């Protein structure tokens, strides 16, 4: 026993001697090595989280949105509807590689990027310090790609069950080029008109895509629904969802995937990511309750479709705010989104009788706008201290911080998104209508898109 103690005491005495022998007086190079090691550790942590986030966001489109939308249509359109989401995972990826990433994140002009990153030139494992200084630019590139995929997929909820597949492809390619890439650049790109941190004229806070993703897709969805016209039989007794069980699974996948969408938008495995994760979850929870209680009061029954629609509405509304607000404002934003989106898809849609088949506008357009405005109210530097003035002082963010003018900036952001979505979508629909024709024939519509567009059926009982 005593000899063991002696041995330990001796080894303790020897440590400083060994250390000084190692450093050999070369402290600066030792510090440099330590700094490099710290940086590489941080990069490894951030990169791991961002790669997982990118995969989570892809999971939102397929299978998340594909299941959610697929269950809401009639059985004869289930494959066609799922294909709308899945095919974008392929199509947008190719456009993104050729020019999309560059048009969104290249250069520093106010409205659209340049071709500096075209064909993914200059996009490698070195970070792009303008956007994310601790992860490879390729990680940032592929993460942002997943957003570009889901956004046009959201629109497909409005033109479901009646659009030609060829027209849908042309529409989404043009829509990505004309609406999405410019909007992404304006809000998130360096020097973009609405960029809050990299020199925008109207700094609009949009943490994860309230304007870029949800307003653009939701408003374009409304334009599509109006332009294409109603489905045969709308509104009427034949348009019931065919399988709410798969919609339910889809919604659950969306909820989980949304952590990658919002918390990933911190672009690092940071405290801000945690804060966005928490706000996201709280928003979804409160909106679920908001929707079903509104429904319970109005119809006498809280439905499962109401609960899952509410959760998506909350996730949409909290998206722009997620990296800016505390947990209780997140609950409030979610609750409002649940009730407002419920009224949009029931009262407002019934009054104006547009056939937004799966409520892409009612949920994403309305929820996105609501969330963008609320962000201007509840954004606080207590959550996000990344915005500093010229003197390096942390800036007041939203009205709650005393910066009431931010609400105006948010409104400008919404206005730009709405205008670009409306004008862009009308022009693109006209082009598609004149070249390919937008709608399937009446016979094809009654036969269903699965057989008429793809030559197959989702459910085959005799095999």
């Amino acid at each position, binding site marked *: 026993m005593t000899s063991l103690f002696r041995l330990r005491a001796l080894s303790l005495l020897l440590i400083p001697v060994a250390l000084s022998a190692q450093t050999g007086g070369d402290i600066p190079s030792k510090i440099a090595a330590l700094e490099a090691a710290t940086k590489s550790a941080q990069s490894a942590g951030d990169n791991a989280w961002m790669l997982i986030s990118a995969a989570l966001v892809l999971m939102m489109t397929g299978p998340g949105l594909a299941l959610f939308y697929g269950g809401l249509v009639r059985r004869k359109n289930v494959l066609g509807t799922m294909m709308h989401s899945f095919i974008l995972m392929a199509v947008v990826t190719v456009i993104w590689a050729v020019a999309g990433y560059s048009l969104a994140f290249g250069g520093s002009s106010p409205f659209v990027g340049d071709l500096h990153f075209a064909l993914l030139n200059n996009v490698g494992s070195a970070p792009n310090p303008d956007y994310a200084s601790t992860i490879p630019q390729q990680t940032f590139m592929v993460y942002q790609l997943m957003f570009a995929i889901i956004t046009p997929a959201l629109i497909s909820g409005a033109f479901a069950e009646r659009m030609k597949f060829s027209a849908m492809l042309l529409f989404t390619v043009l829509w990505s080029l004309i609406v999405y890439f410019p909007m992404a650049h304006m809000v998130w790109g360096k020097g973009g008109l609405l960029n809050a941190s990299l020199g925008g004229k109207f700094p609009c806070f949009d943490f994860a895509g309230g304007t870029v993703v949800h307003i653009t897709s939701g408003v374009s969805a409304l334009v599509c629904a109006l332009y294409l016209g109603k489905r045969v039989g709308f509104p009427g007794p034949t348009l019931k969802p065919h399988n709410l069980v798969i919609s339910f699974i889809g919604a659950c996948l969306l909820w989980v995937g949304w952590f990658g969408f919002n918390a990933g938008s911190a672009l690092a495995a940071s405290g801000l990511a945690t804060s966005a994760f928490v706000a996201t979850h709280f928003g979804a929870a409160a909106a679920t309750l908001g929707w079903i209680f509104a429904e319970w009061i109005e119809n006498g029954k809280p*439905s499962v479709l109401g609960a899952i629609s509410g959760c998506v509405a909350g996730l949409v509304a909290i998206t722009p705010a997620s990296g800016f607000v505390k947990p209780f404002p997140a609950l409030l934003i979610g609750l409002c989104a649940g009730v407002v989106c419920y009224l949009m898809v029931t009262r407002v*849609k019934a009054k104006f009788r547009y056939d937004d088949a799966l409520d892409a506008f009612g949920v994403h357009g309305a929820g996105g706008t609501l969330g963008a405005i609320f962000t201007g109210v509840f954004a606080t530097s207590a959550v996000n201290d990344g915005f500093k003035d010229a003197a390096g002082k942390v800036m007041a963010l939203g009205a709650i911080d005393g910066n009431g003018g931010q609400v105006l900036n948010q409104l400008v952001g919404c206005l730009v998104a709405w205008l670009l979505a409306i004008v862009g979508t009308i022009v693109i629909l006209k082009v598609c209508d004149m070249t390919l024709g937008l709608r399937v024939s009446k016979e094809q519509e009654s036969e269903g898109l699965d057989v008429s567009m793809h030559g197959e059926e989702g459910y085959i009982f005799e095999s």
Partner: protein
Amino acid sequence: MKKIEAIIQPFKLDEVKEALKAIGIDGMTITEVRGHGRQKGHKEVYRGQEYNVDLLPKVKLELVVSSARFEEVVKTLTAAARTGKIGDGKIFVYEVAEAIRIRNDDRGESAL
């Protein structure tokens, strides 16, 4: 021989099957069907859009029995399928001209 076609509540199927088995009736064909008689349907609401569902899920049970056993079978079936409420279903009975077992060309009641 008589064919008994019974349209019953789906949740009564197991009870009916057990009761028939107890009196020695094994063969039957069942189908999931939708329909209604005097029973009214119900209202469903999907995102505010109301749908009246008046064709309700039922189970159709078909079996062919010898004329001698027919009354006993119907009595057993009715007793097992009855709840006493509207929507319990109906039984239709037909005369059967012939029965043939595909496996070995048995004819008549021996094919049942």
